[in-house]
């Protein structure tokens, strides 16, 4: 459909395009700057000479980061938390969402209210912290896996999706003699791949980026996830620890580029999978757009 545009409309459209392109520059530039700096010479960074292209190209910072044992241990731990954590999340969320999506389940609105209430009220940080200690999860990997194992919001998203599966399909499977577990595994879940993808993404990104519970629940450095090590390097500026036996001047010189290199190493996996999953999570937010 071609509509003739008036002059003011053409002006508006062009300004809009320009403005939005400027916005996308603002969104991208910080990441680009970090990437470019990570490949640059530390002197150039310190002198503020980096703007758009790397200066004095070198990969020395990456070499140092990859040689650091802390990073590897933490990387491994993060993978454990992401995989085990997301698995627990998915199982519990599905097991909660499916029964609650069946309209003939007695008392489902009561159970739903019981779950939704937790989105609006909580006991607070301290009781949750003491709870983890009392359960004996303190300083174990379970402290990062069990609290937060179900998100009420995600459960609602999933339930809404399950509700869109025709009842007749489930009824006919029942008449054929399938019990509920079998129906869930063989009929409902295969039809629910889009929402499972969304949930996987949401939960996995959450685990990948999480640090606060690790900070308050973990003492043992061997259990630390990557983000906690990143915090030491980026926020508490202890990049210098990586550089035993280097002169003070050299330390300052390199620690700057180490920061940028660690940012890149810790962010790349997320940014790599992100474009492939984008269409799914947009769908997920839309399903979850506050439906009953």
């Amino acid at each position, binding site marked *: 459909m071609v509509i003739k545009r008036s002059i003011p409309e053409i002006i508006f459209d062009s300004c809009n395009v320009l403005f939005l392109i400027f916005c996308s520059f603002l969104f991208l530039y910080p990441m680009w700057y970090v990437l470019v700096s990570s490949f640059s010479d530390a002197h150039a960074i310190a002198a503020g000479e980096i703007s758009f292209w790397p200066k004095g190209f070198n990969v020395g910072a990456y070499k140092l980061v990859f040689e650091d044992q802390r990073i590897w241990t933490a990387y491994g731990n993060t993978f454990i938390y992401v995989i085990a954590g997301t698995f627990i999340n998915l199982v519990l969320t599905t097991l909660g969402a499916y029964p609650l999506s069946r309209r003939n389940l007695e008392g489902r609105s009561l159970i739903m209210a019981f779950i939704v209430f937790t989105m609006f009220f909580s006991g607070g*940080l301290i009781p949750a912290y003491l709870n983890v200690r009392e359960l004996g999860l303190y300083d174990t990997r379970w402290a990062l896996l069990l609290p937060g194992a179900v998100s009420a919001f995600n459960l609602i998203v999933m339930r809404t999706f399950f509700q869109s599966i025709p009842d007749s399909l489930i009824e006919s499977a029942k008449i054929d003699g399938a019990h509920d577990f079998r129906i869930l595994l063989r009929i409902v879940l295969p039809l629910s791949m889009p929402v499972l993808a969304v949930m996987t993404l949401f939960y996995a990104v959450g685990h990948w980026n999480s640090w606060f519970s690790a900070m308050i629940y973990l003492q043992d450095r061997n259990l630390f996830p990557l983000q906690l090590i990143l915090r030491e390097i980026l926020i508490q500026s202890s990049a210098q620890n990586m550089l035993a036996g280097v002169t003070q001047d050299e330390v300052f010189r390199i620690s700057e580029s180490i920061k940028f290199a660690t940012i890149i190493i810790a962010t790349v996996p997320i940014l790599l999978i992100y474009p492939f999953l984008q269409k799914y999570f947009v769908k997920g937010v839309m399903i979850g757009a506050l439906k009953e």
Partner: protein
Amino acid sequence: MAVPLNAAKANSRKLRTKRSSVSLKPIMSNRYLYLMLLPTVLYFLIFEYKPMYGAIIAFKDFNPFAGVAGSPWVGFKNFEKFFESYYFFRLLKNTFLMSFYSLLFIFPASLAFALLLNELRLKKLKSFLQTVSYLPHFISLIVICGMIIDFTKPGGIINSLLLGIGIISEPIQFLILPEWFRTIYVGSGMWQSLGWNSIIYLAALSGINPSLYEAAVVDGAGRWKQLTHITLPGILPTVLILLILNVGTLLNVGWDKIILLYNPGTYVTADVISTFVYRRGVMEADYSFSAAVGLFNSAINFALLVLANRISRKTTENSLW
């Protein structure tokens, strides 16, 4: 298809007797479904409701050895201590201002961004822009804060830029000066969440019936008229629901970003209720007192949410429940 009247009556009677005589049947026939629900319900009991019960330590003098039940009651002592303390107004003010400014700037900006994207006619550019705008949402907070620290330091790009175009004559130590904290918090929050927040508006926008626009064009409505008469009314319910949710969390500024960025020098403007609870509770093990502060926060939030919901339901018929 017409059903004979007495047949329908007989049918409904049959249904009624069935229901009243075996009321356990629907539960028994769904026993596997209840079994399935069990782990999730247990999770909520253990990790959500047990801490709610544990919050009664706010009214007790909690002793870890005696446990929640065994510790002696002290009534409202911990609350009084908090209300009388020097921190009370500072924390309340900082918490409120931080989320109020976020609401004031980020909420309308996300809406405006979605509307501008919606007006974009170049499909390719639109999807590129969306992809780019969600990106910051997926970057970890630690990395974002690391970037903020680096960008705002005296030799960082923000200072270089401001010096370069001559707005300032000397570098500003943004993170050391309390007066800059809220700007940094809200500004970076906008970068992080603008695109992500706009998804829900874009979803609402795509749900508007296109024939409304076609009819409007036929009637001679320009872009502006279409916006005010079709687009805005079309997404109003979504906007209101989000506004309710935001108001309901007005006193719920998270500890995450603040803990990573503040320092004792900026506590004056940066310290909020949740960061205070974290310091006093987790770091100094002052459990009962900080639990009281946390509970105060939760209760106010809940009250705000109920209030906002009620006002919205009365005035616009849009509500969460």
